């Protein structure tokens, strides 16, 4: 074990004291993530990397029940639906351009459509939505019954936009009704204090000549309200584009580190340091494990450092300290460890099958780019249905998705960890076996 750690430490030291490697491993992905992530942060104020901001596939479920007050029927849920799915497609006040909304009768069906990728986001208007907003003797304290926004973590921009729409519309309803409530309460209070005014107000109300115009009250207002945004798994989500760009770039560059780490085995053989190690009283398997373990630890350090720097950058952008990867740091570390293992496995197999370091550079570059391409390092793969299923074959996808899930405050990353650890363990052992056989000739 001591020798394994000595080899690991030597590899870590030589890697992290090499300025060129630091530039490639840390500075480049950090710069790319920061530039792109910051650009998207400013662009949509909390959006993400699923850029389509037209025709967002949206599922709408309206469970709202109308409410009758003084002979007038109110149904804000229906108003909501009419804004998103107008009967007249030319209606300029509609959000037709922005969303491609469909009405669903059940929340389960809407969630399934998001799960399957048919829709990016689903909103569920609760049954007491109108009741909660409407001022009446039965409901003197108006409030907002939360509208649930379901989204896939991989469609953060769409979720952000829909969340904004929901916020704005609900804001209008709430502000308007709050104004009505305040006005009526003020009139009643004055009528109670001034009997003459009370009589006059009563007569006007009874004759129907009291027709207050509350339309202005229903103009958009900035009054903040809280709407719980949820993913399909049902937990609150706060999206930060740095998480998506940062994790996808970190994993993309980690692939190179993993492949180069394994390639160092061939480089050491070329430079004769490997033979020197083999000629020492050190079992071959110890040397191999030390080398591969060193690569694994290097990858972990690389991503941990990147994540720390990205957290600092995210905090600087936000103007306050932020745990952009979520509060479950142990789970984040577990994903880093599992993803690094998977990448090291890939690196080990590539290097074990190659004959020369130069071959590894060429083949490894192709493998890393292919994994990055299908894993979402360059564009939003889920937006292209033809290749979206392929992304599930890459550790990049499982890693990025797990980081997004944790950043969203969820913990449901068991499948991701199993897949990543499985890929890593199998390929790691295959690489180890091939290397061991090659060194035993």
């Amino acid at each position, binding site marked *: 074990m001591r020798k394994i750690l000595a080899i690991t430490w030597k590899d870590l030291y030589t890697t992290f004291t090499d300025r060129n490697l630091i530039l490639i491993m840390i500075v480049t992905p950090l710069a790319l993530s920061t530039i792109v992530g910051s650009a998207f942060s400013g662009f949509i104020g909390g959006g993400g990397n699923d850029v389509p901001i037209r025709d967002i596939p949206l599922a709408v479920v309206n469970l709202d029940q109308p409410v009758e007050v003084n002979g007038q029927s109110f149904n804000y849920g229906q108003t909501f639906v009419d804004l998103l799915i107008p009967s007249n497609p030319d209606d300029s006040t509609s959000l037709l351009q922005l969303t491609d909304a469909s009405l669903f009768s059940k929340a389960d069906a809407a969630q399934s459509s998001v799960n399957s990728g048919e829709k990016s986001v689903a909103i569920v208007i609760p049954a007491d939505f109108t009741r909660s907003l409407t001022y009446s003797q039965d409901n003197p304290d108006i409030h907002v019954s939360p509208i649930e926004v379901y989204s896939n973590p991989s469609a953060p921009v769409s979720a952000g936009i829909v969340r904004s729409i929901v916020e704005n519309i609900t804001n209008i309803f709430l502000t308007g009704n709050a104004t009505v409530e305040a006005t009526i309460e003020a009139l009643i209070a004055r009528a109670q204090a001034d009997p003459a005014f009370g009589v006059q107000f009563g007569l006007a109300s009874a004759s129907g000549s009291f027709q207050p115009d509350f339309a202005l009250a229903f103009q958009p207002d900035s009054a903040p309200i809280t709407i719980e945004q949820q993913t399909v798994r049902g937990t609150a989500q706060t999206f930060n584009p740095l998480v998506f760009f940062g994790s996808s770039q970190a994993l993309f560059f980690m692939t190179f580190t993993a492949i180069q780490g394994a390639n160092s085995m061939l480089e050491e053989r070329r*430079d*004769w340091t490997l*033979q*020197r190690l083999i*000629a*020492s*009283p050190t079992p071959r398997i110890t040397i191999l494990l030390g080398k591969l373990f060193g690569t694994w630890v290097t990858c972990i350090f690389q991503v941990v450092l990147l994540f720390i720097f990205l957290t600092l950058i995210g905090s600087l952008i936000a103007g306050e300290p932020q745990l952009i990867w979520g509060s479950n740091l142990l789970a984040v570390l577990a994903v880093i460890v599992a993803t690094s293992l998977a990448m090291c496995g890939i690196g080990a197999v590539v290097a074990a099958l190659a004959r020369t370091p130069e071959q590894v550079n060429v083949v490894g570059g192709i493998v890393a780019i292919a994994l990055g391409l299908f894993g979402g390092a360059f564009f939003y793969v889920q937006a292209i249905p033809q290749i979206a299923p392929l992304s599930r074959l890459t550790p990049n996808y499982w890693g990025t998705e797990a980081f997004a899930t944790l950043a969203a405050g969820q913990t449901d990353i068991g499948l991701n960890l199993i897949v990543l650890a499985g890929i890593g363990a199998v390929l790691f052992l295959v690489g180890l076996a091939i290397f061991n056989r090659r060194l*035993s*000739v």
Partner: protein
Amino acid sequence: MQSQVMVEVRDLAKTFKGKNGDDIQAVKGVQLDIRRGEIYSLLGPNGAGKTTTISMISGLLAPTRGDARIGGHSITREPLQAKQLLGVVPQEIALYPTLSARQNLDFFGKMYGLTGTELSRRVDEIVDFIDLRERQNDRIETFSGGMKRRVNIGVGLLHKPQLIYMDEPTVGIDPQNRRRVLDTVQRLQQEMGMTVLYTSHLMEEVQEISDRIAIIDHGEIIAEGTLGELIQQIGEEDRLTFKVGTQSVPDALLAQFKQEVEGVTSAVYERHDVTNGESETLAQVDGIVTIMAKRGRKALPDLLRIADDAELDVLSVEVREPDLEGVFLHLTGRALRD
């Protein structure tokens, strides 16, 4: 009681698969004994099986057949014990260039099981032994070729091995550093009692430092012994070298030298083409006739007369007393650098 034999090699053989699937026998049942405390040199032209043999002894290659024992430990059955007694100084600078000399020594020391204060003490001793105390914390990549060679040797000595294998340790260094390395090798034997297994392309080096020499060719040891014993094996022949420039020498004339001049045992013609570096055009042709003869000075007039009769213009003549190069040439028919 400790055996006087440090290395016993018995029927050691290695067969590789060729590109077309054929078996290539690189080493064909080598047998040799290296005594404790001696400097033993292994000579052989390229492709003779020298590297393969030593790779098997060092545990880098698994033998197809046979075995070697280092200090009584079999390299196939007790490889770790055998390797613990062996220090390796490869021809290549097998060091990590971005680590300092001390960090390299420290790392390889750990690979030989040294730890803590013992490791630190040994590294200090080695740094002094290779005379690099001032530069011990500098990166290897900043060192001159000679300094790198010294660290390369130092790594092999860290764990005080009983046997040290040095593969052409003087390649690519200036005469001053070469002298230093050769002195070091002799100090290892004389002051530390180490057994040295040495290979070199430079006959003078081998001749100077070796107690015994083995010559390997075509995967077999074809001669072994002290320099004197080897010279005796070839009958203490002198080596006569005729430079003939661009002239070609027919086989018939070479045969005539052997048949008509008393004491001549072999005559070989070699043509060395010298080309311009950039254009690769032929700049010069150096033809050399090498003749092995007992009492060469006596044979010289007859040889020159036959050459003159054959209208061969001999441009220069050199007569050398029996030496290792002559032995090697005689036994292998090739110069060591061929």
